C-alpha cells in the first residue's frame, strides 16, 4: 500500500498574506483542520508552509490591535515535511516520527504537491491491513470446516485421561 492510495487529494490553500479570519472561514467551509500556505514568487506560486486550527488559536491570543495585522505567513509553520506518493506506509510513519508532525505533504516525481496525508489516514490504512489479515485467518478456518464436514464421522472412542498426580494409565485402568 503506497501513500498515493491513502492520501487526501483535496488541497485547500491560502495565500501567506491572508488573514486568520479568512483561514478560519476556509477551514469551516471546507471541513479541514489545516491549510497549505502558498507564497507568490516570480516563478509562480510556491508552498511555504502549513497552518492548522491550532496555529490560529495561538494567533487569536495576540492583543486587539496586533491581531488585526497578523498574516497567515506569520502564524504558519514554515517547516515543510513531505513524502513522495510512491513511498509506503512505514516510511511515511518514520518521516512523521522524525519530524514530530501529524501531517505530511505528498509530492509526485516532479516535486509537485499532490495531496496531504495525516496520522489518521495512516491509522486507517494500518487498521484496514489488520482487518485483511484477520479475514485470511477466518477464511482459512471456514474452508477447513467445510472440507472436514465432507468426511465420514469418526468412530466414537472411549478415552480416559489419567488423574492429576497419579502414575499414569496403569493405575487409571485398574
Amino acid at each position, binding site marked *: 500500500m503506497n501513500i498515493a492510495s491513502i492520501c487526501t487529494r483535496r488541497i485547500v490553500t491560502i495565500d501567506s498574506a491572508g488573514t486568520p479570519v479568512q483561514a478560519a472561514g476556509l*477551514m469551516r467551509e471546507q471541513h479541514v483542520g489545516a491549510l497549505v500556505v502558498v507564497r507568490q514568487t516570480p516563478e509562480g506560486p510556491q508552498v511555504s508552509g502549513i497552518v492548522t486550527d491550532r496555529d*490560529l488559536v495561538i494567533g*487569536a491570543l495576540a492583543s486587539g490591535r496586533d491581531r488585526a495585522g497578523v498574516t497567515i505567513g506569520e502564524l504558519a509553520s514554515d517547516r515543510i515535511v513531505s513524502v513522495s506518493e510512491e513511498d509506503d506506509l512505514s516510511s511515511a510513519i518514520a518521516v512523521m516520527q522524525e519530524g514530530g508532525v501529524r501531517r505530511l505533504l505528498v509530492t509526485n516525481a516532479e516535486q509537485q504537491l499532490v495531496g496531504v496525508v495525516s496520522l489518521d489516514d495512516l491509522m486507517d490504512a494500518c487498521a484496514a491491513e489488520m482487518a485483511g489479515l484477520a479475514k485470511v485467518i477466518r477464511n482459512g478456518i471456514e474452508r477447513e470446516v467445510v472440507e472436514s464436514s465432507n468426511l465420514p464421522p469418526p468412530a466414537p472412542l472411549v478415552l480416559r485421561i489419567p488423574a492429576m498426580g497419579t502414575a499414569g494409565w496403569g493405575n487409571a485402568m485398574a
Partner: protein
Amino acid sequence: MSERLTVADICTRAVAIAHRSTPVDDAARLMREHHVGTLVVVDETEAGRVVVGMLTDRDIVASVVAKDLDPGLVQVGDAMSADPVCAHEEDSIIELLGNMRRKGVRRVPVVDLKGVLIGLVAHDDVLEVVAEELRLVVQAIESGRQREPFRRP
C-alpha cells in the same frame, strides 16, 4: 482483550479544564500551556466537577476567529460543544470504540455515575493498548518459531 481492560485503566487522569464563564482567550492560553487541543468544561458542584461541555481549538476557530470576535469577550460556554459524549469509567474498550465510532468523536471525557469528571480518553490511548497487545502476539509467534528447532531437531 486480556483481563478485560476498562476505560478507567487507560484514560488520562490529568485533564485540563475550563468553566463556562472562562473567557476564550484564557482557555486558549491554557491549551498552549498544557499542550492540549481540548479542554473539558465543568460545573463545580457538591458531588465534584460535573462535565457540561468540551472546547477544542477547532471550536475556537469556528466560533471566535472566523467571526473576528475578541476572544477576551467571548465565554467558553458560548463556544463549547454542550452535552458531550461521555464514557463511563467501567465501560470496556470495545464499548468505548463503538461509542466513538457511532458518534464520530475521538476524545471523550470519562465520568462516574454522577457525571463527575474522572479523566479523558482519546483514540490514541486505545491505539497504544492495541499496539501493545499486537506486540505480545508477535512475541508469542516469534518464541514459537524459535522453539520449533529444539522440539523437532
